[in-house]
């Protein structure tokens, strides 16, 4: 039998590392077990092609909770966020729509296309600010169970009720609309210019098997507005060294708190005796005892793979089986010998330092979804393209570049299933689509990594390749994430906890689930 720990965290993704750091900070002797050789889960930087560092999965950061940055002093451990200042949407007529760092410049640019939208954008921005303010307290809150009469839940509900009442009618109604509408409908109420609506609505479909016209996507849009970098909502940035360096910084902070981290240590299952977790057994048979075991994996793995479903109530197993994953996004990473030349903005302008959004119209996005709805990858997908080496030259050899392309849609349930041939065909569709806007791209490619939802699942373990550990759909949020009555990080097995993005408040490099879980463990399991 191996050394005993107070707490074992399964999975060295960013939430697992955050949970471990907080547990150790609270005095628990803590061990993190990561299956892969590299920490970070879906926040990893890997040199897949010599000299070129790929942000393999997640690629930008905004949602990481400021209180975690402060509590763990992540800047001292390597967190360094660089500005991602612009978004450019190439249009089919050869023009473009740009959002720049300077709000006045952005407004003038939008005026070029629609003076009315330029005005509307200012008021819309104010509303989204208020919506983010409205949601912010919820992000740091243990989700109360509305069906429970326990004092804690009642107090939570009362607090929540008071919070919503304080919003006032106008903002409450806006919030309700965001919670229920499609992003396309919601944006139609505000804007007329197609590329603008499409680019904004794209935030609403990320990581979700829904199109911009599907109800519920407006909330995902809000989810992407909630980040606060340096006190400013919806600011996005690059981590120096890629998102893997965020995981490394959290790991370093965790080690500084005394956490032991083991890689290449895959957990076979959680040991349970008499309804109480007693430790874990690794693949290979090593048993490690602990009285607290925390799973950073998604709900499917947490409840149906790491433990015997017979240890759990039927209703929970059922809810978890119905929990929607439906991975819908892929990733293409490119090593480039030079910079792409966009027809709409020729040369090496500032647009290459920001995001390039392939989202010319709502119709384009909805058609991309149509392909996926019927089991095919999008022939002309939505793409969020960034070139991290533009702002962080260390990502590629001098003068060369890495390009990260987030792609939607690539359905997990592809007709006939994914194979090597289909993966490459998907990669070709991505590059061909990009070449419509930047014709020289093909001649620049030194190496290409294509990742389908199946690859995402195979490499990271994320069920069906869903990047959020389960869709951010209203029926899977807050006190329903991942299942009714089990949204407070605990499980029916005593001493067995959950801390992944499959719990409230969910996906993105946020760390909130890990922190809330650790705080709840420290509070209730002395």
């Amino acid at each position, binding site marked *: 039998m191996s050394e005993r720990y107070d707490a074992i965290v399964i999975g060295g993704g960013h939430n697992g590392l955050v949970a471990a750091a907080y547990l150790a900070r609270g005095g628990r002797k803590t061990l993190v077990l990561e299956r892969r050789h590299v920490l970070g889960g879906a926040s990893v930087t890997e040199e897949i092609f010599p000299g070129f560092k790929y942000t393999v999965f997640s690629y930008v950061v905004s949602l990481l909770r400021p209180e975690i940055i402060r509590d763990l002093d992540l800047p001292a451990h390597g967190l360094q*966020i660089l500005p991602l200042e612009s978004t450019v949407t190439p249009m089919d007529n050869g023009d473009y729509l740009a959002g720049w*760092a300077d709000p006045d410049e952005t407004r003038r640019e939008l005026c070029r296309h629609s003076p009315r939208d330029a005005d509307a954008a200012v008021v819309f921005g104010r509303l989204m600010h208020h919506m983010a*303010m409205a949601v912010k307290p919820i992000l740091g809150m243990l989700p109360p169970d509305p069906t429970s009469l326990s004092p804690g839940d009642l107090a939570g509900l009362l607090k929540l009720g008071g919070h919503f009442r304080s919003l006032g009618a106008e903002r409450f109604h806006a919030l309700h609309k965001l919670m229920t509408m499609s992003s396309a409908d919601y944006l139609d109420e505000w804007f007329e210019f197609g590329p603008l609506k499409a680019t904004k609505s794209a935030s609403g479909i990320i990581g979700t098997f829904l199109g911009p016209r599907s109800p519920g996507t407006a909330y995902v849009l809000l989810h992407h507005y909630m980040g*606060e970098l*340096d006190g400013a909502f919806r600011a996005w940035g690059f981590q120096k060294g890629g998102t893997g360096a965020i995981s490394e910084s959290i790991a370093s902070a965790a080690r500084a708190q005394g956490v032991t981290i083991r890689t290449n240590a895959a957990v076979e299952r959680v040991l349970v005796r008499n309804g109480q977790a007693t430790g874990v057994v690794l693949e290979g048979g090593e048993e490690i005892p602990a009285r607290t075991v925390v799973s950073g994996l998604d709900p499917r793995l947490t409840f149906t793979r790491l433990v015997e479903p017979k240890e759990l109530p039927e209703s929970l197993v059922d809810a978890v089986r119905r929990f929607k994953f439906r991975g819908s996004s892929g990733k293409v990473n490119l090593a480039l010998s030079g910079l792409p030349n966009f027809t709409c903005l020729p040369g090496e302008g500032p647009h290459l*330092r920001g995001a390039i959004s392939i989202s010319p119209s709502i119709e384009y996005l909805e058609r991309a979804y149509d392909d996926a709805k019927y089991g095919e990858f999008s022939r002309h997908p939505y793409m969020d393209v960034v070139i991290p080496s533009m*702002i962080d030259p260390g990502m590629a050899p001098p003068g060369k570049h890495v390009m990260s392309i987030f792609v939607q849609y690539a359905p997990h349930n592809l007709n006939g299933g994914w194979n090597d041939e289909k993966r490459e065909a998907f990669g070709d569709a991505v590059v061909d689509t990009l070449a419509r806007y930047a014709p020289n791209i093909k001649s620049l490619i030194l190496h290409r990594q294509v990742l389908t939802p199946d690859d995402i699942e195979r490499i990271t373990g994320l069920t069906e390749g869903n990047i959020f550990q389960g869709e951010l759909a209203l029926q899977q949020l807050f006190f329903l994430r991942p299942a009714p009555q089990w949204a407070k990080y605990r499980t029916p097995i005593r001493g067995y906890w959950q801390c992944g993005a499959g719990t409230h408040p969910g996906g993105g490099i946020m760390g909130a689930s890990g922190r809330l879980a650790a705080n709840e463990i420290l509070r209730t399991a002395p």
Partner: protein
Amino acid sequence: MLKTSPFHPRTSPLVRAQTWRRWAGYQMASAYDPHPDREYAAIRNAAALIDVSALYKYRITGRDAMRLLDRTITRDMTKLKPGQVYYTPWCDGEGKVVDDGTVTRLDESSYRLTSADSSLRWLHLNAAGMSAGIEDLSERVGALSLQGPLSRAILSKVAATDMAALKYFRFVDTTIAGIPVGLSRTGYTGDLGYEIWVEADRAVALWDALAEAGKPYGLTPAGIWALDIARIEAGLIMMDVDYFSSHHALTEARKSSPYEINLGWAVSAGKGPFNGRRALAAERARGPAWGFVGLEIEWESFERLFARHGLPPQISNVAWRSSAPVYDAGRQVGYATSGCWSPLLKKSLALAHLRAPHFAPGTQVELEITVEHRRERAIAAVRKLPFFDPERKKA
């Protein structure tokens, strides 16, 4: 008319929003972009090229050059080796700081002094009875500061010298792309970085050579706004912002000794006679009345002040340079003179003068800030400077 720097033909077309500022009678870029975020990021992440030609520069030669400087500055000139650079303050007879800058020993018998303010008169006064040549190079020599973790990689491509051999606060005469330059491993950012000194008529050619070599390394022209944030993180003071030159101060109370502005380490106790020696010895014996320290504003208290008005904390991406009172237990114990949000450390920082004994690291004080038109006090902790001190600076 404000003067323009020898690099102006290159910097001028890059200043997109015409954000210029005055610096010692020169017109210099505040920022090239409308906001300094990217320029600041380049200093800490890649490399930034900053025009610092507005510094005053003097070449001091002759039999008594060393004696003149030793009499002027607070550090011991007899220990400065050829190819070495000092950062140092200098004082008046009462031990109050006149200015701060660098002294480089260019070779056996010639030196270069840089200063924030014109120092010609002061040098001549101090040279009375000595045989020393004082040549004002301020307009003849342009200066570029190349700062950031990749600055050495860039210079390794173009400088005809072994960059690995150029240590912290050392100087070498060399060429860059065939252009004769002086190259020192110095700067005002607290990062790995260099300053490059060039004859004005070769300045544009030097800029072009560096811009070309730096392109694959993300070299970014940066203005004073970005530099200001970096220098606050590095805890580096600025004359007439964080302290008044004793030559400018309208009252005695506005003058500071080196001990009062965190430069006590640069006062050599053992050296021969120099300006202010007696006063400084006396001050050292009784302990300085003021300390110059860092303040780190406690985020929760800062956030609370804004939340009261339904606002998220307001953060500027430009440093502030105004005096703000600092309190301890309700009583004013000093004042902050500049501060910024550190994008790197994710903290709100300030530089402050505090009365003894309130400047001990860890002391909790309150800093006055204006929130929604009201004067409020945010909790802050006294920190030892610098806030940021990466290994690469000296490595």
